[in-house]
């Protein structure tokens, strides 16, 4: 017995080294999935405060570009608003009695809710990139919600604390987004594989469709995370490889992740209902 203790004492550094490494590997395996709650992350109170202080300083250097983005978005929204006004003047279905007119699609009646949040931490050059937002559970953000910017998809909420939230960026090797080619309605999966942060892959587009350079890619709306028709990007190159049954398509992302300042967290009020329905029906949740 004494020899055993002597042995442990002699190799205490090595044993501790192995122990700590095992702990680290456990942490990596357990918490480095693209989704799943980690207890320690940049959404915790103190880490969030440090990052908020940092972005409070650096944001001043980007005010011009932030203002530009917001002004452009305002113009776009105003345009859409005018369209709606024009439509409501020419279209009289709203004033019809429900006895004669039953609205069929509930999704049209209950839109998605958006929560605006400021990006206080961001990265684009790692293999797995995350963002931190200064908006949290107190504002109604929950893990699993989608995140969009004014010009396209950004990612999914990973964890939330009271005032902060972390987002798995689209620039994460394990995040998949269900998307479709707008022109032909063919759906595939958007996946980022590292390297250039402006380019992602569109996978599983079968060979019988004819995607062309410049085609618009939007979200499919087949899952409860993103609404249908949110811009993802445009096709920048299409390749047909000899022994593959799918195209190799590169997509230029609409969002410039290096310039992100304000984003919107998408809340789907019917997410729980749809998810339980699909689960009860035995449909496995699709890759997001």
């Amino acid at each position, binding site marked *: 017995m004494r020899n055993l203790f002597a042995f442990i004492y002699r190799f205490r*550094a090595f044993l501790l080294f192995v122990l700590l490494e095992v702990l680290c590997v456990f942490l990596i395996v357990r918490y480095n999935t693209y989704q799943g709650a980690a207890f320690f992350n*940049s959404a915790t109170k103190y880490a969030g405060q440090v990052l908020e202080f940092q972005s409070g300083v650096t944001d001043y250097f980007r005010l011009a570009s932030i203002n530009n983005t917001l002004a452009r978005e305002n113009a776009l929204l105003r345009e859409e608003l005018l369209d709606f006004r024009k439509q409501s003047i020419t279209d009289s279905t709203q004033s019809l009695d429900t006895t004669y007119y039953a609205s069929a699609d509930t999704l049209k009646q209950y839109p998605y809710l958006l929560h605006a949040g400021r990006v206080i931490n961001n990265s684009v050059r790692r293999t797995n990139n995350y963002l931190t937002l200064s908006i949290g559970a107190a504002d109604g953000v929950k893990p699993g919600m989608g995140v969009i910017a004014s010009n396209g998809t950004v990612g999914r909420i990973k964890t939330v604390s009271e005032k902060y939230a972390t987002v798995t960026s689209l620039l994460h090797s394990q995040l998949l987004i269900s998307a479709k080619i707008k022109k032909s309605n063919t759906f595939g999966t958007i996946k980022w594989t590292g390297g250039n942060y402006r380019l992602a892959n569109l996978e599983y587009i079968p060979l019988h469709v004819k995607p062309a350079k410049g085609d618009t890619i939007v979200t499919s709306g087949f899952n409860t995370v993103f609404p249908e028709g949110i811009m993802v990007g445009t096709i920048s190159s299409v390749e047909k490889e000899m022994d593959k049954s799918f195209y190799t398509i590169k997509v230029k992302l609409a969002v410039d992740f290096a310039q992100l300042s304000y984003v919107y967290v998408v809340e789907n009020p019917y997410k729980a209902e749809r998810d339980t329905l699909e689960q009860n029906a035995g449909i496995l949740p699709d890759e997001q």
Partner: protein
Amino acid sequence: MNSSFGIKYIVQFILFVALQILLMDNLVLFSTGFCFIYVAFLLFLPIGINKVWLLFLGFLVGFTVDIFYDTMGIHAAASVLLAYLRTHLLNLLTPRDGYDTNDAANIHIMGWRWYLVYTFTLLLFHHLAVFFLETISFGTVWYTLLKVVASTLFTGIVLIIVQLLFFSSKRASRT
């Protein structure tokens, strides 16, 4: 563990980790050269430090960076590896007459050759661990290796600059 150890190295810890999170996070050269300056805290610890303590400190500093980088465990694992290897490398690099009591991992005291071998060897292992744990796969091995080499050079040069600027040569140098 005397009191001067406490204050000086706690300040270094906070300083290097703050530099890492606030400044170096945004400073990536050609999207391949990363600077992990927080490693300097482990490299600049006194030579005679208890190796068990060193492992704990390695875990602590790596874990702190992990929290801000959202890379749970990756930097901690690499830093513990560095802390473990540091003890052995110091034994290998022992000067002919052993270490003096006032020796520290300092470019002015130990000389250029000793310092360069010490820093770049440990940085190489640390960066190898970080980048390969990050990708897990060996699919993009050449790109990852390029990142390792570029980042090792970048961090190493930054550490030399830090040494030359902030560590005085006033204390008696080794002959």
